[in-house]
Every structure is written in structure tokens, then in C-alpha cells.
């Protein structure tokens, strides 16, 4: 569901499988717990292994963006598959400048 590594202030969370409202709750808790305690400068959400995502994934990104802003760090979203990008494009998240 999510594997997290922290390397020299860059914390990378590799998400996998389906991201929906049910799974977001678990993913959010795991990422927030690690980010709160280790305070990385950059949090990277890697979507390369995600097979399905609904708008809950947009909420997940928005929430982590807020969290990293509060911690004085920044968020990056990478490796978004084409079928999932459609949901992100609809959300207008690119205006936050986190999508790579």
C-alpha cells in the first residue's frame, strides 16, 4: 500500500495498488507519522505502482501539501500513470506546483 524511505531529508513514499477513500486513511496515517517525527525537507509521493485512484487521492495530495507547508518543507508528486493523471488534471492540482 505504501513503502516509505527517508534519505538525507528527502522522504519518498511509494504508493501501490488502489487508492480510494478506504485505503487513503491508512496511507495518510503512515506518511504523517513518519513525516511528523522525521521532519524531511521534501516529501515525494511516487505513484508509479498505483493501479486505480479516485478523487480521494487528490485529497491525500492536498492534505500532504498542507502538512509539508506546516513543517516548512515541500511536496513533490512523481510518476503518475496516464489513467490516474486524468483525475489529477480535473482537480487543477498542477496549480500547486507539486506535479512533476
Amino acid at each position, binding site marked *: 500500500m505504501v513503502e516509505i524511505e527517508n534519505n538525507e531529508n528527502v522522504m519518498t513514499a511509494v504508493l501501490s495498488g*488502489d487508492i*480510494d*477513500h*478506504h485505503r*487513503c*486513511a491508512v496511507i*495518510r496515517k503512515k506518511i504523517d507519522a513518519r513525516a511528523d517525527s522525521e521532519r524531511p525537507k521534501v516529501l515525494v509521493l511516487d505513484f508509479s505502482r498505483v493501479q*486505480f*485512484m*479516485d*478523487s*480521494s487521492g*487528490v*485529497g*491525500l495530495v*492536498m*492534505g500532504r501539501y*498542507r502538512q509539508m507547508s506546516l513543517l516548512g518543507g515541500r511536496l513533490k508528486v512523481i510518476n503518475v500513470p496516464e*489513467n490516474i493523471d*486524468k*483525475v489529477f488534471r*480535473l*482537480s487543477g492540482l498542477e496549480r500547486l506546483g507539486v506535479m512533476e
Partner: protein
Amino acid sequence: MNVVNEMNLSFSAKSINESFARSAVSAFVLSLDPTIAELSDIKTAVSEAVTNCIVHAYGYQGGIIYINAKITDTNKVIIKIRDKGCGIENVRQAMEPLYTTGGEERAGLGFAVMQSFMDKVSVRSTPSKGTTVTMEKAIIRCVKNERP
């Protein structure tokens, strides 16, 4: 337009069933030989509607969600997702992008996704009685494997 296939499903309004609901509808639609993109659109729209039932209609207190899906002889899929929850006072406002009553981790995009990913979406709701979301999508028939 005649209905050539139909299914009915009812299940508990628990978040663990979001995956079950979209997989069941997706399996039903497979007989139309949809593209991966069409199937992904339908799964996403169903996931949004079912999540709305769990989060908003029943407010995490549980209940039953009903799904009726039909396939027509014009290759159209018609999906009705119904709850007997709190209903929506102002449907127009609820359908506005970014409007949400679900807290800051909700994007408020559920209806926007349904409208964008399906051909037609309609919502009927009665406060204290429940809501029915009806979505339609035409599956473009692939002719490359058909005999002349």
C-alpha cells in the same frame, strides 16, 4: 432502447466495500468489451458515488447501498447507486466542484469526476429519505475483430 442485461447488488455502507462495488460493476460491464480507459472511467465514477453514500449519506454510521446496473441494446451502461441516508438539501450546491462537507482531506470532486468521466449524471434526493445517482455511458463498439 431495450435492456439486454441487468444486475442488482446491495451491500453494507462500509469503506472496505468501495473496492468490491467498483470491481463488481466493472465485471458486469466487461461483456460490452470496453476499452481500459472506458472501464477505468466507470470504476472511478462508481467509487465516487459509493464513497459519497458512506461518507455523506450515512455519515459513517452504516446503512445499505443499492446498485442497479443495466446494459442496453445500444451498448449503453446505466448505473443507479441509491442510499437511504440523510439526503441532500441543495443538490446544485453539492455538485459544485470543490464543495464538500467531508472535512479537509476530502477534495470535493466526487460529482465533478462522475460528470467528467460519464456521459450523463443525474441526482434525485429527498432530505431524510435518501439519494439516487444515475449515470450513463455509451461503450464504443470495437469492430476490428468482427467479421465483414
